[in-house]
């Protein structure tokens, strides 16, 4: 990976303190995103990425959780997070607590609730050898 990109894993309980620390140090919230990942066995987990920028370096805080879990909102620290949190809430079912502007599930109008959870593969795909056409 690009040497200017750093990924560090974090427990959900430490999000607020770490994000506050980054805010004080002058980091800018670039984006928040989520992906589904396979945990042990068939357990499906959600991986949250909080991306921050300072001097063109991208720092990603990675938090592993599950759909339906409660996570504290960082929109009190970075107001711009409210949009990302609403999006992840609707697409992945993460319940962010205390979002600055909470759309309560009306940001997107989707036929299927939490589509990224509903359509996520149940088991990890086994990559074939090679991969090229």
């Amino acid at each position, binding site marked *: 990976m690009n040497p200017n990109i750093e990924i560090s894993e974090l427990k959900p309980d430490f999000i607020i303190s770490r994000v506050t620390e980054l805010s004080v140090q002058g980091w800018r919230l*670039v984006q928040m995103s989520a992906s589904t990942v396979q945990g042990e066995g068939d357990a499906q987990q959600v991986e949250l990425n909080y991306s921050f920028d300072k001097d063109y370096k991208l720092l990603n805080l990675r938090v592993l959780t599950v759909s339906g879990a409660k996570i504290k909102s960082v929109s009190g620290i970075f107001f711009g997070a409210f949009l990302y949190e609403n999006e992840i809430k609707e697409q992945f079912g993460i319940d962010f607590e205390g979002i600055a502007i909470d759309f309560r599930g009306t940001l997107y109008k989707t036929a299927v609730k939490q589509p990224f959870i509903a359509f996520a593969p149940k088991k990890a795909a086994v*990559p074939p050898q090679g991969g090229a056409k």
Partner: protein
Amino acid sequence: MKQTIVPLGPQHPVLPEPLSFDLVLEDEKVVDAIPSIGFVHRGLELLAPKRDFEEYVYVAERICGICSFMHGMGYCQAVEEVINLQLPRRANQLRTMLCELSRIHSHLLWLGLAADAFGFENLFMHSWRLREKVLDLFEEMTGGRVIFSIAKVGGLRKDISTETIRRASKVLRDMLPEIKEICDVFLNDASVKHRLCGVAVMSAENAHKLGAVGPMLRGSGVAKDLRVSGYASYGELQWEIITEKDGDCYARCAVRVREIYQSIDMIRQLAEKLEDGPVDTKVLAAPKGETFMRLEQPRGEVVYYVRGNGTRFLERFRVRTPTFANVPAVVTLLKGHELADIPTILLTIDPCISCMER
């Protein structure tokens, strides 16, 4: 004081695409603004695991019709980084050139829309007349005016002759007097200044804190432009980040105007340095791993996240577009302004709802 809620959008003359704000007014002053998006959300990210990663370029470039090339290229760059694919120099130079042409076209389009918003019909028509010439260049170079389908994982689908590139650079330089003529009106006309100067001022600190990107950020004096990182061929060009200090609507407009001149100069430099050689390299593996890729689009920083598992289908593709990042800033900016200024303020973020509703 009694409060009134006025819905602005999703259909409004100043909004070319659906976006809505519930404006809470006290008399004519906005005291709060609640945004609503998602009217035309397409779920393109969810489509990525169902398409071959090389074919998904066609989907990526349909995220937006204005910076379609940059979306296709950004996606390709992300996949290429995961595969660890080195591109021929000419491919990077041509990609950079198409990016800068896209920036000129996008800024001219915005200038036209802005002129239309503050009632300057003539300026709108002249901006779009010049934009047509850029679209003609796209057509000559790629065969397309909106969607080019020229970017692919590993380079470009077809070469563009050096002669065509040099002619395009000359056409742009010949356009300079006309561009200067309309840009001088944007920057010096009293009626334009009246609508833009001192309106919706955002400090550098606020722009940074609210996560603003692109001309929104640079208009507030923050020198941040991802092209500095030197992706594609930006590392071989002589240029400086354009910033303005005032942080108002006029400053954001001035940044875009100056970036048009800068892009024309970048294309001139590229045309002079253009190297002969291949424009693609063979893709011998499927992406296995992950990366974040950031580019500078006309509206600002865009972020692509790609994760592959070694098959031809990506596990996850995510794109955070500049307009999505600028919405929180504009929500904050709208507060405290007169209702009549709202369309102009909204336009100064150069909203691209198509991008946002990927």
